[in-house]
């Protein structure tokens, strides 16, 4: 046993246990008495549940109790029957996840085909993607990214847990520019354009984005906290 406050630990346990959705640290700080050492408490709690049927897991900015995935086979719980995602939706989801922030046009570019209207809607409705801002380019297109709910659903602590991200990056495949424009950055090709100009694009784009109205972010956070 560590030396954390026993009462605080109980409060944290009760609060996290009571919540279906991951609870952001910020909310925990609000709920627990002043001076509670949240981080140490979480560590203690996590250790306690290490060998139990439920686990305390880290999701995005928050923490949540979830049943042990190893029990999946044996656990006869009514499963939520989620509509099987279409191929287009799965592809679109992975493009949003790996290339975010990404515009609709860029998704279409990567897939080499127009996006039917319902595809994004399904992902948006599932609470996996959200508008992140607007690209500072003509037409100010909305950019999309994934949500905390996405991390929660696929049991990821952060986007760094995206499978194969490192390999894809190393292979230069995380690049949302039209294919012909990517030529310049590839070592084995004669540069088609000034490489400096092109290489900067991804970073620029991060800077090059207007956030949607500031409340948006908060709304989403509070929605998820509910």
């Amino acid at each position: 046993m560590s030396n954390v406050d026993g009462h605080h630990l109980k409060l944290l346990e009760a609060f996290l246990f009571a919540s279906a959705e991951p609870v952001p640290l910020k909310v925990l700080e609000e709920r627990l008495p002043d001076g509670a050492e949240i981080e140490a408490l979480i560590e203690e709690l996590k250790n306690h549940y290490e060998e139990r049927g439920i686990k305390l897991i880290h999701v995005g900015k928050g923490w949540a109790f979830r049943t042990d995935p190893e029990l999946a086979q044996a656990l006869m719980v009514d499963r939520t029957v989620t509509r099987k995602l279409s191929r287009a939706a799965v592809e679109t989801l992975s493009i949003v996840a790996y290339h975010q922030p990404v515009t609709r046009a860029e998704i279409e570019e990567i897939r080499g085909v127009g996006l039917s209207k319902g595809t994004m809607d399904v992902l948006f409705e599932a609470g996996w993607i959200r508008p992140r801002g607007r690209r500072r380019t003509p037409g100010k297109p909305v950019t999309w990214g994934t949500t905390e709910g996405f991390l929660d659903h696929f049991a990821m602590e952060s986007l760094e847990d995206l499978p194969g991200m490192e390999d894809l990056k190393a292979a230069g495949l995380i690049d949302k520019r039209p294919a012909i424009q990517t030529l310049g950055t590839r070592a084995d090709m004669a540069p088609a354009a000034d490489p400096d100009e092109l290489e900067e694009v991804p970073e620029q784009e991060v800077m090059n984005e207007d956030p949607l109205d500031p409340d948006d972010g908060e709304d989403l956070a509070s929605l998820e906290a509910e």
Partner: protein
Amino acid sequence: MTEDVNDSVDDFEDEERVVAAPGTELVLDVGGFEGPIDVLLTLARDQKVDLTQISILELADQYLYWVAEIRRTNLELAADYLVMAAWLAYLKSRLLIPDMSTEEEPSGEEMAAALQFQLRRLEGMQDAGARLMARQQLGKDFFKRADPEKFGYNSTSIFEVTMFDLLSAYGEHTHRSNVKTLHIQGSDLFSPDDAVKRMMGMIGKIPDWASLDQFLPIELRGDIISRSALASTLVAALQITKEGKMQMRQGGSFEPIFVKDAARVVESIDDINEEKRDQ
């Protein structure tokens, strides 16, 4: 890349082989594909070689053959697929006749490399999607608390009401409940009708130009009642003048206004007498 092109050139010369080879394995279900790149990717995968090693020229041929087969069996093909076919036909020509490249346009090799990149990128995303879906998923492999409990807030409400709000609400209410019938208060202002009557009575008695002020029923004090008197008298004078019974004159803006009996102009004593009798 160059090797690929060379191979492809050989393949091209052996046209029969290209048409026949993959033909039997082709899936003609257009609906199963997510666009032309997806078709190309499927065709490429059928070759079972690394995408970085693939012969783009051969792939282009296979795609063109696939499109031809689809069209031969009268299946509808979306424009996207035909555009890609045209592009691939163009790419083929660029690859086979390298001299055509100009400064502005990418060379055939560059176009092929771009296509290869696009294929690899989409393949990367498709694989990533598959790996994502293979992950343990909430509600399928692990579960959240199905019966969440809520801890509420100890809310202390502070109501924003000022004394002014309270009193004006009461004032408004009192006012509303008192005005059951709307009585329009009689006006104590001077009306133009009265002014016309007054002036008509006085008009015959003016020997020469006289200031309009002299016709006011009350002294001009600057309050709303005397101002209404001035306004209505002016309106009356204009009306009477319009009827030709009077003349008006003003030296300039804001100068005093003078009026004169129109009958005096013709010096008709009869008219004067008549008017006197009328009174």
